């Protein structure tokens, strides 16, 4: 009960909804789990689904985005606090329950991905803050019997300067509840921003350095069991005979159950569950994927790349122009399957009852997961509650189109009849599929006598991520999966004749979006091949790009900034050379200059990466820098190390010893420069990734004269003869 008004909270929000005018703000706030009405009694003012202000002056921001490291538990509150005029030191963050009020403002489901959080919440959350501020001011004006126009809000207070009076937000919370929500809100002039654009310390840091931050793996509930699954050795294989005698004799093992994903050993804790899993004796019917191998896929893809595919872009007459060009260049590029390898292995805790289901997990895909869980549980989606914990990395893997890690956990809980947490081992993660697809690209270009490119053709071969998902109808058109050709079809260079086409072979390896998605491969391919053209034309790769981007001011902005900060053209010590690349992704522009050297044995060392980014107006500059740094390291891991391969249908890698990550001793110095901008804010979580592989490959060419056309970079290809 809300003592002040005598209304139940839910009634208030219904009333709020009825009063709602022209604002794009949902007034519906569902009952939140884990906290009783009594606990909430002091929090009386909740003008919309994103804000609760307590009589104790606390300001709770409900964040509808998953915090997976990209800083949304700080940037989302900054948007609200800026307009609310809250005292930043009183801000607390809570993760949103699943509710339409928290749907992605563009995609229409509750999810985090596509580097869109700030981009898509920029308007809505500032309006949410402004609306609350206006209601607090209205409450103060009524209390003082003065005109609201004569009051202002600042640092958690409403102030009436003329009479030198002030009331804190907490003191106003009870009366603000009774104010009519404004029909329109006026947003601040950007010159008055106090938080937006200022480097702001992350709110989640303290909990992440003293052991209190709660990830999915850390949640425990009474009576909970732990399950580890024996998963198929080949994608799609089925267990046909299971001998679980030894598994069941492991002390602590409670049950062995079969689910679609495999055979689950359920025990008192992780260790007995894992020992039990390892003791299972299973005969698998391997099915059609048992013959898959990387070698045969390469052959198949290389053949396909020589044939015309579905056309994603055609300008002019590329084939004819190419045939008659003064100089022709052709090249084939390839990149492997990659696993996301988040540091926190997948896990999901499910408490399934006859009339409800509670789930604790780190997910990027709440609406999809809830629907999938409900279907398996035999419940309505509204009966399924998802508690989104912190994510120990996401990179796309925790937005699974079939909710694989949620569905299997619900199946296990259903079979066992007790709360169960399924934990993936690292091996399960590396071998579990849902990879960045393997790609094979064939490119050809024609240069005129002056060395200007006049024709460009690019054939891309690789599995469609979106085919078969709920996004297929929207994002796959005329045989073109937009995510397969992104970064290639929008080739920005002034080349009059362009053809980009696509083959999307069906292969039995589950694939998924992986940080920067299609750009993770097209950035490498396009920017490496462009570098080949520059060298063929005998031109400086930076000047070659500048000339071809003369009509693209934001590309030029980052390109010139990165080149100047990296001192492009100045001599370098000790066998080092520079490479440059520029790439547009998630509506942001990024240029990078890498300095690399290659030892006699072919070992590549990346010493320094200079990065320039134009992501529109910046909310938290330090987060932008951190995301570029992180994207560069992530991209370097892929460029220098990452490779998932298959033989006889089996993934050949299993843990960090054979699927290695970049480590501290290999991390380059990184400098990040932000182009000042007043444009709409755009992505930062992914755009740091695509440019680094080509920048490094181009530096390797500058250092050795050897062109890297296949990732990861192999020392054996670069060794001095």
């Amino acid at each position, binding site marked *: 009960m809300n003592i002040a008004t005598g209304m139940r909270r839910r009634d208030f929000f219904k009333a709020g909804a009825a009063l709602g005018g022209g604002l794009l703000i949902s007034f519906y706030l569902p009952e939140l789990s884990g906290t009783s009405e009594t606990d909430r009694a002091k929090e009386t003012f909740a003008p919309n689904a994103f804000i609760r202000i307590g009589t104790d002056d606390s300001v709770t921001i409900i964040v509808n985005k998953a915090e*997976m490291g990209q800083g949304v538990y700080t940037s989302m509150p900054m948007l609200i606090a800026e307009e609310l005029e809250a005292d930043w030191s009183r801000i607390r963050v809570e993760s949103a329950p699943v509710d339409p009020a928290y749907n992605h403002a563009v995609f229409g489901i509750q999810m985090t991905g596509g580097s869109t959080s700030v981009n898509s919440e920029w308007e809505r959350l500032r309006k949410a803050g402004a609306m609350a501020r206006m209601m607090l001011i209205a409450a103060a004006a009524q209390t003082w019997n003065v005109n609201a126009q004569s009051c202002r809000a600042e640092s958690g207070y409403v102030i009436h300067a003329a009479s030198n009076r002030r009331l804190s937000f907490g003191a106003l919370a009870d009366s603000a509840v009774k104010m009519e929500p404004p029909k329109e809100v006026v947003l601040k002039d950007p010159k008055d921003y106090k938080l937006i654009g200022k480097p702001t310390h992350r709110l989640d840091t303290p909990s992440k350095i*003293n052991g209190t931050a709660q990830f999915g*793996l850390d949640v425990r509930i009474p009576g909970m069991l732990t399950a580890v699954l024996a998963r198929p050795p080949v994608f799609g294989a089925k267990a046909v005979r299971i001998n679980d005698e030894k598994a069941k004799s492991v002390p602590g093992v409670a049950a062995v159950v079969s689910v679609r994903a495999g055979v689950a050993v359920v025990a008192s804790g*992780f260790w007995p569950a894992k020992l039990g899993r390892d003791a299972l004796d299973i005969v698998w019917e391997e099915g059609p994927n048992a013959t898959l191998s990387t070698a045969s896929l390469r052959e198949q893809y290389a053949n396909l790349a020589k044939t015309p595919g579905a056309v994603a872009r055609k300008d002019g007459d590329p084939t004819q122009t190419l045939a008659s060009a003064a100089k022709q260049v052709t090249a084939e590029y390839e990149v492997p399957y990659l696993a996301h390898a988040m540091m*926190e*292995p997948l896990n999901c805790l499910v408490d399934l009852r006859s009339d409800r289901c509670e789930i604790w997990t780190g997910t990027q895909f709440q609406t999809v997961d809830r629907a999938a869980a409900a279907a398996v549980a035999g419940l309505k989606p509204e009966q399924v509650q998802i508690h989104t914990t912190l994510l120990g990395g996401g990179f796309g893997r925790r937005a699974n189109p079939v909710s694989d890690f949620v569905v299997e956990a619900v199946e296990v809980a259903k079979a066992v009849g007790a709360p169960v947490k399924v934990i993936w*081992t690292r091996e399960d993660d590396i071998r579990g599929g849902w990879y960045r697809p393997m790609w094979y690209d064939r490119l050809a270009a024609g240069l005129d006598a002056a060395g200007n490119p006049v024709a460009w053709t690019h054939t891309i071969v690789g599995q469609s991520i979106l085919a078969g998902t709920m996004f297929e109808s929207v994002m796959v058109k005329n045989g073109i999966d937009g995510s397969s050709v992104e970064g290639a079809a929008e080739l920005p260079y002034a080349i009059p004749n362009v053809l980009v086409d696509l083959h999307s072979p069906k292969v039995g390896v589950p694939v998924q979006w992986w940080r920067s998605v299609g750009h993770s491969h097209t950035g490498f391919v396009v920017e490496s091949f462009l570098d080949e053209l520059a060298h063929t034309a005998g031109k400086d790769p930076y000047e070659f790009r500048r000339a071809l981007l003369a009509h693209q001011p934001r590309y030029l902005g980052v390109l010139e900034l990165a080149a100047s900060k990296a001192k492009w053209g100045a001599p370098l010590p000790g066998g080092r050379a520079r490479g440059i690349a520029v790439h547009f992704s998630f509506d942001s522009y990024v240029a990078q200059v890498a300095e690399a050297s290659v030892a006699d044995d072919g070992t590549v060392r990346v010493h320094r990466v200079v990065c320039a980014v134009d992501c529109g107006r910046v909310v938290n500059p330090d987060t932008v820098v951190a995301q570029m740094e992180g994207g560069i390291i992530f991209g370097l891991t892929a460029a220098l190390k990452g490779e998932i391969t298959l033989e006889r249908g089996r993934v050949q890698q299993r843990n*960090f010893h054979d699927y290695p990550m970049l480590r501290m*001793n290999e*991390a380059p110095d990184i400098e990040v420069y932000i182009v000042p901008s007043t444009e709409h804010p755009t992505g930062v979580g992914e755009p740091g990734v695509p440019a680094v592989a080509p920048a490094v490959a181009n530096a390797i060419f500058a250092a050795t004269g050897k062109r890297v056309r296949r990732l990861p970079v192999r020392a054996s290809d670069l060794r001095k003869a």
Partner: protein
Amino acid sequence: MIALNVNRRQYSVDVDPATPLLWVIRENIGLAGTKYGCGMAQCGACTVHIDGEAVRSCVTPVSRAAGKIVTTIEGLSADLSHPLQQAWIAEDVPQCGYCQSGQIMSAAVLLRENSKPTDSDIDDAMSGNICRCGTYPRIRRAIRRAAQLMASGGAK
């Protein structure tokens, strides 16, 4: 029963002596700050101290910790006052944060043994800890800052 001293508290746990210390700390003692990342001493997310030495608890049988002093991230300081924690806040090191307990526990041993680490000392001490978010440049800066804090007595 195995007697354990974790963060200066005594515990008695009834588990198979071969059980990795990691899972005893997390599930039997209930301290979840120490993380599982690989289970084969490849990533360092599970790093704790046994008698002051950094060990990978995912491959350390709990029996090896019996009668010794175990320190986890929760035992580093009661109030974020350790110079590494202060430096981690100042440099805004964590992104997802999952690996950071292990990073800090490795760095704590480095700084205790070497109050002025060079970049190559930092590489040697920290290259066993993976950060998938790529916070290495900030970890490096934060370790240098913590060393300065310790030298100036700015935090204890």
